[in-house]
């Protein structure tokens, strides 16, 4: 067996995979594209459904990776992968005993849905912007005013043929409920309206949180997709939707419009797939070998999948997959596939 297990991506998926491997006595190397560990979660404030600070998950993982002496390299852009080696954009070839793809997914670029006015009107934000503002300790309208009416739109860049993203991003519904509650806590006098198509409360405690949002926080849920947003004189935004439960068009002026951006497959997936032979699903995410028994295995021997590289999922599910993958990798290294 030549080389170590190479982990592509240093987010929570990559870190937990390295740690679980370490616990089994297997050495690994994390290749991270940016300059720091933690991935997307570092930009997040609180995690659903328990309002746990994202830092409470990320920081201990980073600490553990450092303490256990797992080797990490930063600024590494992977251009080619197969089950025996990884090639970086510098041309460097790194031998691998196995490769774990932990490079996650990409947040949908809300500017593509021009009709919502993101990047045109000042008071249109994405869910990621809201998390960032929460982390910075200042949530407000663009001019610093306190919002009195906030609309949150679900399914932006998910379940939408028009942007070629058919899949459900899974976590946006519960994120929208979480952010609605957070915003309501910050601005108790504000009215918060969630515009949803379907409420997909699939996880433990999610439905309960939805119910609390309705009853305790008095958050309004409107069933309908916002079709367009237009600017008003005072930098507020007018939105149009159909209130499908009453069957009538609805028009509303809001101080903030928050777009729940979905997860889409990384653009890189295409060439990682073509170089490695690990297949992609129709939606561009990596395809697990088997949805029941082999979720963390790619269709190519020696290449493993952890986290949102294979489909949108929650932090908890990602961490579970990391541990599961470590065991499958250990089996692979000992017995072959």
């Amino acid at each position, binding site marked *: 067996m030549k080389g170590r297990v190479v982990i592509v991506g240093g987010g929570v998926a990559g870190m937990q995979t390295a740690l679980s491997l370490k616990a089994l006595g297997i050495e690994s190397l994390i290749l991270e594209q940016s300059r720091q560990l933690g991935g997307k979660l570092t930009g997040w404030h609180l995690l659903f459904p328990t309002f746990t600070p994202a830092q409470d998950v990320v920081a201990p993982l980073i600490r553990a990776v450092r303490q256990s002496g797992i080797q990490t390299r930063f600024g590494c852009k992977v251009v080619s992968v197969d089950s025996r080696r990884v090639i970086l954009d510098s041309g460097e070839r790194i031998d691998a005993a196995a490769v774990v793809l932990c490079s996650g997914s990409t947040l949908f670029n809300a500017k593509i849905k021009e*009709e919502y006015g993101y990047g045109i009107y000042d008071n249109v934000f994405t869910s990621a912007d809201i998390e960032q503002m929460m982390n910075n300790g200042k949530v407000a309208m663009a001019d610093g005013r306190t919002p009195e009416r906030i609309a949150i739109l679900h*399914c932006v860049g998910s*379940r*939408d*043929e*028009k942007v070629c993203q058919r899949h459900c991003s899974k976590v946006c519904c519960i994120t929208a409920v979480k952010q609605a509650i957070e915003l309501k806590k910050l601005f108790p006098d504000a009215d918060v309206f969630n515009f949803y*198509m*379907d409420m997909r409360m699939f996880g433990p405690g999610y439905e309960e949180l939805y119910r609390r949002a309705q009853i305790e926080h008095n958050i309004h849920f409107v*069933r*309908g*997709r*916002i*079709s*367009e947003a237009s600017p008003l004189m005072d930098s507020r935004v007018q939105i*149009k*939707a*159909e*209130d*499908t439960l009453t*069957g*009538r*068009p*609805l028009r509303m002026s809001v101080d903030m419009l928050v777009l729940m951006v979905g997860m889409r497959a990384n653009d890189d997936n295409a060439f990682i797939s073509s170089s490695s032979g690990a297949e992609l699903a129709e939606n561009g995410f990596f395809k697990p070998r088997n949805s029941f028994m082999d979720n963390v295995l790619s269709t190519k021997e020696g290449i493993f999948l952890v986290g949102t590289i294979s489909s949108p999922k929650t932090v908890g599910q990602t961490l579970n997959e990391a541990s599961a993958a470590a065991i499958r990798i250990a089996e692979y290294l000992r017995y072959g596939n």
Partner: protein
Amino acid sequence: MATNFGFSISKPRVIDMDANNLRKSDDILASMPQLQSCIGCGACTASCTAGNLTSFNFRKVHTLVRRGEYTGVYEELNKCMLCGKCRLLCPRGINTRAAVMTIKRTLGDF
């Protein structure tokens, strides 16, 4: 009556799926299976140029058609200007303009 189409709250009408004849609805769906994929988000109706000026609601009309409720549908659909905004917005990629035309053609002046 076309004038209070679908909005007669005072006169609740049961959609009687035992009595309704779905044959025409089936014909429409056979020629346009994509109409089945509607998730009822209402984006079509929200942006509707005609719906902005009158009580036209495409989502509701085509849903009623799929339940076998055809009365008044033809003239209701003649409020549509076929401008095509809804087609640009439909998250399911339904060819809404063709749906309007197909339903009109199939139902005729029902």
